[in-house]
């Protein structure tokens, strides 16, 4: 039988066997945690506590600033040591709480209250999701409750649970599906109710068939949740690709999935909703896959939000040749220069590469020979070859006007296949940011 899938895409080696058999293990608390006020797309949260105050694990310490924003919760009991600028994984410094963790505390007590989830209305569920500080845990970090309120002219009929986890090395979603199927299904039921949709589909790549089987066993009779195995191919987990694979619908350029009647949530997000909502808790920890040839003890770790990357690496142990630390997966993740950046809500993995890793020895960039590999790889069916040539001629505006630059979601498939080692995605990021700056400048001039 032909598996459901989308057009184009690439097949990188998945390296998942390093960690996909290892159960989720809890990581101890670091001496101090760094909790950024902005770990999500949208406005940063507003602090609710002052420097010097004591906080209980799970206590809200920052409130949402408006609709497209979420609150933050204390990941551990301790004292707010400072609120100051700290480096973030993305580069620029952002305001962060520094929480000195009470080392003597058991961290057993949790700040929480009980919801009767069966009696909650759609609005109440949506509000509770925002109160939990929930964001897309797959990496996008978009506030989850915003996706639960689609624009009024969009009629959403299907909830898609994204269990593809198409990035190589990462196995946190896989483990969550295996170990917390109840939480995941509970989360789906809640969001289904909040969205008012009849059907839900869980999309899982066919390299995780065991997860599909376990979820199937836990389905209840009137759930109306379908589990659909899709082809293992990168970037199957991109929401536009997954919607195409599962439903055959194509999200138009520049639109959200709700334009074609779909809302997509990562399985990790849904499992957290299923787990946290009944207790009124916030997101204070997440599962992070720590893997790669540079790690001694690869694994899936349950990590308190705000744990410094260095602490996590110390626990997993790095080889003496460790050379590059990537936050997220190797296809779209960022390599970090500073190890004091914290684990944030949307950080699904950490991959460490060794000095002698063949992937680190990228060859010299050569001229484009128009082999067309990138055109065959681009899941958005753009023309990366042409865009790349235009980028080297700094034709940034034409790239957008004639070649749909902004529809590139930077999956990296083109750079991955390019035999000339042209850093295409990097070119496109630069072009986009130049265009953004130009647009902002033009707007400023017009005013």
């Amino acid at each position, binding site marked *: 039988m032909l598996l459901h899938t989308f057009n184009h895409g690439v097949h990188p080696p998945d390296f998942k066997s390093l960690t996909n058999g290892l159960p989720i293990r809890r990581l101890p608390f670091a001496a101090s945690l760094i909790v950024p006020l902005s770990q999500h797309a949208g406005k940063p949260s507003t602090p609710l506590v002052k420097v010097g105050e004591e906080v209980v694990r799970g206590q809200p310490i920052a409130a949402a600033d408006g609709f497209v924003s979420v609150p933050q919760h204390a990941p551990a009991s301790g004292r707010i040591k400072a609120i100051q600028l700290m480096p973030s994984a993305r580069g620029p410094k952002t305001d962060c709480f520094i929480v000195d963790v009470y080392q003597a505390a058991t961290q057993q007590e949790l700040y929480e209250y009980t919801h009767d989830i069966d009696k909650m209305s759609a609005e109440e569920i949506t509000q509770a999701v925002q109160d939990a500080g929930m964001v897309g845990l797959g990496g996008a970090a978009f506030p989850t409750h915003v996706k639960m309120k689609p624009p009024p002219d969009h009629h959403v009929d299907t909830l898609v649970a994204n269990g593809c986890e198409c990035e190589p090395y990462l196995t946190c979603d896989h483990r969550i599906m295996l170990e917390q199927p109840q939480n995941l299904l509970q989360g789906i039921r809640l969001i289904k109710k909040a969205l008012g949709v009849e059907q839900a589909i869980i999309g899982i790549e066919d390299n995780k068939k065991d997860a599909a089987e376990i979820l199937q066993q836990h389905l209840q009779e009137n759930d109306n949740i379908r589990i659909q195995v899709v082809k293992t191919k990168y970037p199957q987990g991109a929401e536009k690709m997954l919607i195409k694979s599962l439903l055959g619908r194509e999200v*138009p350029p520049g639109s959200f999935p709700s334009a074609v009647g779909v809302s997509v949530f990562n399985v990790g997000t849904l499992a957290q909703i299923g787990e946290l909502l009944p207790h009124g808790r916030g997101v204070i920890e997440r599962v992070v896959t720590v893997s790669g040839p540079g790690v001694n003890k690869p694994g899936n770790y349950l990590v308190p939000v705000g744990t410094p990357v260095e602490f996590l690496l110390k626990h997993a142990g790095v080889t003496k040749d460790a050379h*590059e630390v990537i936050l997220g997966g190797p296809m779209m*993740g960022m390599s970090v220069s500073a190890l004091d950046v914290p684990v944030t809500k949307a950080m699904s993995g950490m991959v460490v590469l060794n000095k002698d890793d063949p992937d680190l020895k990228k060859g010299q960039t050569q001229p484009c020979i*128009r082999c*067309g590999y990138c055109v065959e790889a681009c899941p958005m069916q753009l023309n990366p070859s*042409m865009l790349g040539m235009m980028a080297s001629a700094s034709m940034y505006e034409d790239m957008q006007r004639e070649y749909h630059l902004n*529809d590139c979601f930077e999956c990296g498939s083109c750079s991955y296949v390019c035999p000339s080692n042209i850093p295409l995605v990097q070119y496109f990021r630069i072009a986009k940011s130049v265009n953004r700056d130009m647009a902002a400048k033009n707007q400023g001039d017009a005013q």
Partner: protein
Amino acid sequence: MSDFNTDLRSSPHLKQPVTVPQIMRNVVYALLPVCAYAVYAFGISVLLLLLTTTLTCMLAENLFCRLSNRPSSLNDWSIVITGLLLALTLPPGFPLWMAAVAAFIAVGLGKTLFGGLGYNVMNPALVGRAFVQAAFPAAITTWTPPFLPDRFSEVIPSTLTTPFMIPVPIGDWLKQSEVDAFTGATPLALYKFEQITTPAMDLLSGSVAGSAGETSAIIILAGGLYLAVRKMMDWRIPVGVMLGATLVSLPFWLMDSALYPDPVFVLLSGGLMLGAVFMASDMVASPVTPWGVWIYSLFIGMLTVIIRLFGGLTEGVMYAILLGNALSPLISGITQPKIFGQRGKS
């Protein structure tokens, strides 16, 4: 721990391990059987021809890189392809000094002038061949039969023509080699001027006269298959060229099979196979868009047959490919694919 050196790179951090030199080297591998057969069929003259063009191409590439202060690009292997292909398109007894001129022009005019690998508009080997076709019209249409008994011990007299001299006629030499009934014509010329169709089996196996490397369709196709399977050649291009050639030749043959050649003969004769598999498919000079690839290859196939049927030349592959190359940026431009989410809407 905190003192370990971190490397900062932009994503993706994985890389498919195929590189340009690898692709080029594989094309060379696919060409080697064609070269070997050419030497087997036509003898040491072709061996000398292959060595002359390849070495001249390499020397010229090196020289031009030095002159333009660029690092030597010999290690990307693309120039070896140019050298081999050029020799394969020349008559077996082509004077070596003329072959060297063709090689020099191929690299200088066909490649370096545009900025080297990746920037050339046309296939460099064909640019070189087009130049000598115009410059030495007699030499480039002087053919020798395959499988001469003394081909491994005796060089075709015209091969060793003194530089800047006109090659000696080889008619007498051929007679002396006791070849019966060789008219010095390729299957295409035989057909065009004498209406004689060469049997398809001879064309497939390569027991006919012609350019050094164009005579055995089977070996060329095998090389193409190897590249297509390894995804180092776009299979749509040779298929499109052959389809285009069939589309034009079939109706004429159906109308008047006495006057027009059958499509099988059209496909197997002359340089069509060599051109379709190894030259039209040159990545640099062909379009990248899905529709563009089809338009480009169909155009080449159709134009080849039109030139053969109605032009003054017996062969049209070279000019058809060169014209297709020249048009490919335009074709790419007008065939930009609809992007994801745009289909169904105009």
